[in-house]
């Protein structure tokens, strides 16, 4: 009689635990399905879909990067595999945790890191109206697309903007549970496991062209003061990279953008720190003429290149990497045959894109 009761209770406990497990698993999937699809989301899902240790290089950056670097061009011309882990308006505090996220599944020989988030962080932290690092949406572009893990927990715990409660970032279904209609979208279900291959490997393009007036670069040699928060964040990133991936080369990048002249001092200060750590940086603003980047045709706006500009920049970055870093050539590797396939599909799509010139009046 007593045994019967014990067995009965054990069954009950087992059922409750199983129910909790299945529910949590189901809720993770549902929460992934409910969030809207965006470039940031697709880039993260595409990254998670890449086979383990298959990427030779990974770029971490904001939209200015994922509208510029074409991983498939790099593969086709030089044979190395790379991925654009880009998210809109990337904040400086996110980069360190993205590095940690990358090395969980990949062992890239090269990390390319966008420097612009540190420039924005530095300038906007001093502005009165909007502090970039305290904006919720760009933070969620990263945190909500990361897989649930300790790294994600720490990222949110240490770096989340204070405008919303921490638990709403950690348990992000609190943000998306209102979007019930997304559950009826077949497209959303593709991302149910937060992993879905992306043919273009994180590259997105603009087809519009606008005339851009660049700020003059008057103070080329000047060093601007970095605010303490940004400086600490940048040093923490460099320390993390040194410690967590000692065999990985790091290349900091500055993509062409129109207000560079105004903030060159900030970049000079960042370059100085990079030099101290013995890493590389590549300021594409210095190679505008060499790349034949046309301010009348190759830009979508002051911050983003269009497809024409991206092709020129990618050709330059590709050859730079090929010359400077000893990355393997995978073009004839049977394990990477799908990269050749992806390139063919992508190249065909790109060849049909026509640049449309806007506001020439």
């Amino acid at each position: 009689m007593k045994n019967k009761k014990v067995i009965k209770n054990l069954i009950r406990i087992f059922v409750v635990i199983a129910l909790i497990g299945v529910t949590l698993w189901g809720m993770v999937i549902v929460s992934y399905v409910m969030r809207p699809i965006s470039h940031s989301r697709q880039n993260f899902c595409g990254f998670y879909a890449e086979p383990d240790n298959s990427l030779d290089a990974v770029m971490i950056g904001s939209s200015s990067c994922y509208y510029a670097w074409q991983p498939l061009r790099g593969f086709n011309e030089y044979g190395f595999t790379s991925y654009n882990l880009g998210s809109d308006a990337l904040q400086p505090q996110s980069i360190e945790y993205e590095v940690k996220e990358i090395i969980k599944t990949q062992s890239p020989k090269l990390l390319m890191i966008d420097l612009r988030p540190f420039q924005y962080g530095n300038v906007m932290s001093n502005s009165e109206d909007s502090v970039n690092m305290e904006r919720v949406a760009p933070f969620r572009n990263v945190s909500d697309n990361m897989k649930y893990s300790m790294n994600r927990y720490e990222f949110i715990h240490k770096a989340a903007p204070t405008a919303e409660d921490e638990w709403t970032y950690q348990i992000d279904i609190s943000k998306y549970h209102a979007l019930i209609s997304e559950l009826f979208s077949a497209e959303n279900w593709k991302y149910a496991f937060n992993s879905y291959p992306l043919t273009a490997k994180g590259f997105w393009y603009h087809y519009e062209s606008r005339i851009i007036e660049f700020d003059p670069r008057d103070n080329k040699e000047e060093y601007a003061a970095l605010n303490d928060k940004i400086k600490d964040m940048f040093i923490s990133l460099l320390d993390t990279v040194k410690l967590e991936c000692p065999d990985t080369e790091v290349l900091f990048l500055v993509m062409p953008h129109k207000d560079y002249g105004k903030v060159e001092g900030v970049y000079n200060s960042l370059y100085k720190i990079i030099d101290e750590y013995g890493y590389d940086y590549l300021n594409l603003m210095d190679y505008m003429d060499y790349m034949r980047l046309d301010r009348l045709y190759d830009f979508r706006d002051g911050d983003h290149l269009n497809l024409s500009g991206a092709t020129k920049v990618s050709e330059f970055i590709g050859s730079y990497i090929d010359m400077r870093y000893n990355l393997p050539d995978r073009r004839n590797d049977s394990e990477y045959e799908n990269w050749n396939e992806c390139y063919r599909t992508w190249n065909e799509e790109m060849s049909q894109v026509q640049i449309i010139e806007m506001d020439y009046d």
Partner: protein
Amino acid sequence: MTLVSFSFICFLLIVLLLYYLLPSKWQWVILLFGSTAFYMLAGTPITFIYVIISILSVYLGTHFMEKKPNSKKKIYVFTLLINILMLVALKYTNFILTNITAVGSRFSDNIHEGDWSVKWIASLGISFYALQMIGYLTDCYWGITAPQKNIGKLALYNIYFPQMVSGPINKYSNLSSSLFAEHKFDANNLREGGFRILQGFFKKLVVSEQLTGIVDYLYANYAEYNGIYVWIGTALYLLQLYSDFSGCMDIVLGASKCFGIDLAENFKAPFASTSVQEFWQRFHMSLGAWLKDYIMYPLMRSSAFSKMTKKLKNKYGKKAAKMIPTFAAMFVVWFCMGLWHGGGWNFIGEGIWFWLMIVLGQLLEKPLKSLGKNLHINGESKFMHSLKCVGTSFLIGIGILFFKAVSLRAAFTMIGSAFNLSRLIASVGTVGESLSLLDSSIGTNRIVWAAISVAIGLAVMILFGLKDKAEERFHVYISKKNFWIRLLVGYLLIMSIIFLGAYGPGYSASEFIYGGF
């Protein structure tokens, strides 16, 4: 920390753990410490001074009333005044100042309405604990209750944390034995309490919070949303108010049940009422009972009323002598009821409206019955019963419109447009356009989600309500069922709250409507 928060659940679990793990003779002490900690976490700590003043004054007052029977009345009045003045000063000073400046502005160009105001912070739950303390003091004065000798226990009665913020208002004689008794751990209490808390979260998050944005928007933009929208807004507000307050009570009573302490019920299927009077016997029952016990009956027994009754009897007969003093006492009660809800003429307007409806209901009861008889209408039929329920809800709706409206003037404007036929017809034609405007105002595409949630929530609430009307309430009924049914119901409630509840970024489910009083 608020009642509808994860931190409250954690807090409750910690207090429960201590409550049952430590020796049972210390249980009331744990509750006292827990309640003080709750106040510090949920309220403004400095305002605890008002609570201390209230407890000290009542403790000393009742103590001296016992010691000096000759000065009993003076001590009682003095203690009563301290507590009433504190309540009035903290809650109504701005209302009084606004009215003084409004009158002053008519006589002097140097004074403008609203010129004077104070920024005093009322203590948490003052409207509830002040009434409890006044009730206790009065009971001691009348000799109904023996004064509590232990000031700690009296303090616990005053600030018992589940009920402190939103009531119910418990009579000392009903609560004290259970509150100070030693309770053994009983899984059934936890089950019942747990289900009731879940029920409360469901009502609050799935129904009330989903309606908040829509109702607030309609009431704030009453000039634009008139005619049919007044009816829609009021019907939704009626539902919101009920789900909010009864949900809050479910959390309060459920939390208290976990400690083995039963608090007074505040609701009993109010929408099953066939008259306004009956509605108020089923809605916020503890406040109604308090007002009757400590305002209406003492007034009726007062010498002034006795004299009035005598005079009326001599002049107009027995019936008038019975009715007029009753209606006069009821007027005072309903005026206080309105005022209790807040310092504003719209609240007083609400009280007077309900008084008027109850008086008319009583005056017209007999003539309507005989009219029904003459027309061969069976007043006891199910159809007529339902019709009476709908009619009562309609009258209640108009009353709460005063309560929700931004001002008394706004309330009259809204009522005017709701009964204006041309506006009604014109507004019906714009429903589609207005819905999309409303959708973009409360959050794109959220109105469909809100509608689905509220529809499901309403269906479940009717289920709760049907059980509540019966002797055995829903949470009791479910907690008696076998393990698998309990598991299923609990699971469904939790999932509904997660997916249909309005919480998270963009929502603020932290406040209860009645928590603001």
